[in-house]
């Protein structure tokens, strides 16, 4: 195969083989004996648009379904999902993007499951939470009915078609059509009991998202009662007016992921949602970690000056923030002292969850956690999987993992 390089030059590369591409990751897995450590990846992705042929027929509304199917048919000129501009593949420098379609899989089994096993085995990941990619933009869709239909169809497909083919290695936090509060609750009530559903995901890429709106309280209560998680998954939205001053993708990307979590977490905390739903585990996904100390400092500072604006809070915002959960990727391993300080501030030993984000361009290996010089063994094990094991009730896959879970006080019957 060849890739487009500078000035139209073509560069010959082999077709994609995930196992080969990640051979060095597999070496790290062997060298660090990751088989003995339960590793849960709370944020990994597939490209669900490759499965739209199977997903869209699950839409309920016949008129919207016809529109979606027609848009995707040969010669169809519509588009089902809003897209945002960007260059995640860096002009093909991250070769797994342009080469993705060249990878061979067995046509008799879901391709995503096979690709998933390849990268999970290489990274030493035991379980991964499967999130979509394009559907993270569903909150930009102007029709809330279409948002609901797409989430509904995806949730059905994931639970009825995809997860059953993953040998129990993948789980999900299903997509909530947050633009439609009633539809959101209906999803929780319909799919909440299904196998492999650990929780719920709200994509935070939206023009407006009042997480404090009374319309959502029933949904939060329903999730809390089920003992499931509520995850806010961030993303970039270069077209958002906030980022239209950014003339490079790096700027919109670096700020966008953090920004949406900063925004919605602030609203969540200030409105006392942690007080209202104290047993609801809330996850903030894919924004890195560097933003968290900043928000803690800002909110604590203003909370002391303006307590009358957030009377539901009985403690400082940072204290509630420490009790929520954060996915680790993309972890800013730059200033090690700052990172160590961040870990202390968020109580990482109990709040941080390893995430790879594979196959996206800025994925992190488990070694990014394992090799941190300031972590003790308990923290390493908790972050890589112990804390997620408790949250999602994922059983250890061998005796050594079980013994490590027991040793570090994480083991729960699953």
């Amino acid at each position, binding site marked *: 195969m060849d890739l487009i390089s500078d000035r139209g030059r073509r*560069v010959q590369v082999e077709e994609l083989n995930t196992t080969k591409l990640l051979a060095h990751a597999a070496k790290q897995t062997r060298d660090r004996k990751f088989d003995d450590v339960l590793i849960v990846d709370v944020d990994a992705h597939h490209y669900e648009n490759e499965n739209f042929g199977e997903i869209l027929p699950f839409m309920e509304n016949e008129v919207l379904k016809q529109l979606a199917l027609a848009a995707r048919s040969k010669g169809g000129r519509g588009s089902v999902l809003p897209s945002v501009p960007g260059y995640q593949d860096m002009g093909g420098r991250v070769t797994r993007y342009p080469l993705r379609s060249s990878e061979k899989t067995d046509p008799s089994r879901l391709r995503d499951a096979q690709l998933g096993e390849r990268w999970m085995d290489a990274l030493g990941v035991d379980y991964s939470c499967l999130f979509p990619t394009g559907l993270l933009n569903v909150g930009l869709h102007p029709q809330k009915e279409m948002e609901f239909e797409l989430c509904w169809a995806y949730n059905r497909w994931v639970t009825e078609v995809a997860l059953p083919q993953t040998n129990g290695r993948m789980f999900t936090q299903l997509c909530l059509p947050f633009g439609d509060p009633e539809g959101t609750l209906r999803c929780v009530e319909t799919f909440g009991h299904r196998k492999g559903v650990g929780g719920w995901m709200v994509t935070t890429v939206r023009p407006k998202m009042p997480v404090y709106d009374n319309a959502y309280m029933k949904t939060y209560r329903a999730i809390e009662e089920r003992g499931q998680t509520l995850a806010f998954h961030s993303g970039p939205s270069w077209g958002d007016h906030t980022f239209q001053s950014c003339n490079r993708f790096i700027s919109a990307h670096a700020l966008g992921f953090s920004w949406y979590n900063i925004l919605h977490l602030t609203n969540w905390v200030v409105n006392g949602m942690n007080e209202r739903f104290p047993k609801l585990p809330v996850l903030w996904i894919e924004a890195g970690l560097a933003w968290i100390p900043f928000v803690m400092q800002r909110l604590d500072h203003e909370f002391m000056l303006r307590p009358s604006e957030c009377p539901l809070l009985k403690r400082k915002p940072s204290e509630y923030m420490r009790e929520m959960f954060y996915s680790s990727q993309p972890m800013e391993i730059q200033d090690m002292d700052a990172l160590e300080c961040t870990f202390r501030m968020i109580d990482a030993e109990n709040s941080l969850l390893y995430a790879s984000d594979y196959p996206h361009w800025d994925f992190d*290996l488990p*070694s990014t956690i394992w090799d941190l010089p300031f972590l003790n063994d308990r923290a390493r094990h908790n972050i890589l999987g112990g804390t997620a094991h408790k949250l999602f009730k994922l059983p250890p896959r061998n005796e050594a993992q079980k013994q490590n879970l027991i040793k570090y006080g994480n083991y729960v019957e699953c």
Partner: protein
Amino acid sequence: MAEQFVGKASEFKDGDRQIVRIGEHEIGIFRHEGEFYAYSNFCLHQGGPACEGLTIARVEERLRPDKTSMGLHFTNDMNFVCPWHGYEYDMKTGEHVSNRKLKLRKYEVITKGNDVYVVA
């Protein structure tokens, strides 16, 4: 120090690359503008296969004397890019182009007649 046969120089065209293993060493050998360059194939970021990705010319932003930008342009300098996340290394030095202190281990390449060897 072990010498490992890489290939015939006559069959190693400009723009080609080979990956060879010598014990624990994994080495990428490039031929660029007639010269051979050899570097460790373990990326300094997270250990990815640094030499197995795209080769692409370095990008620069050109400024006019009044400091206004003329936009982005390819230069004639070549980089090779780690395919995992995009670390870009200078073909001639093995240095990361944004931080020259980060440098891949460089290996010696020798030719004996038409035979190319890397030394590790």
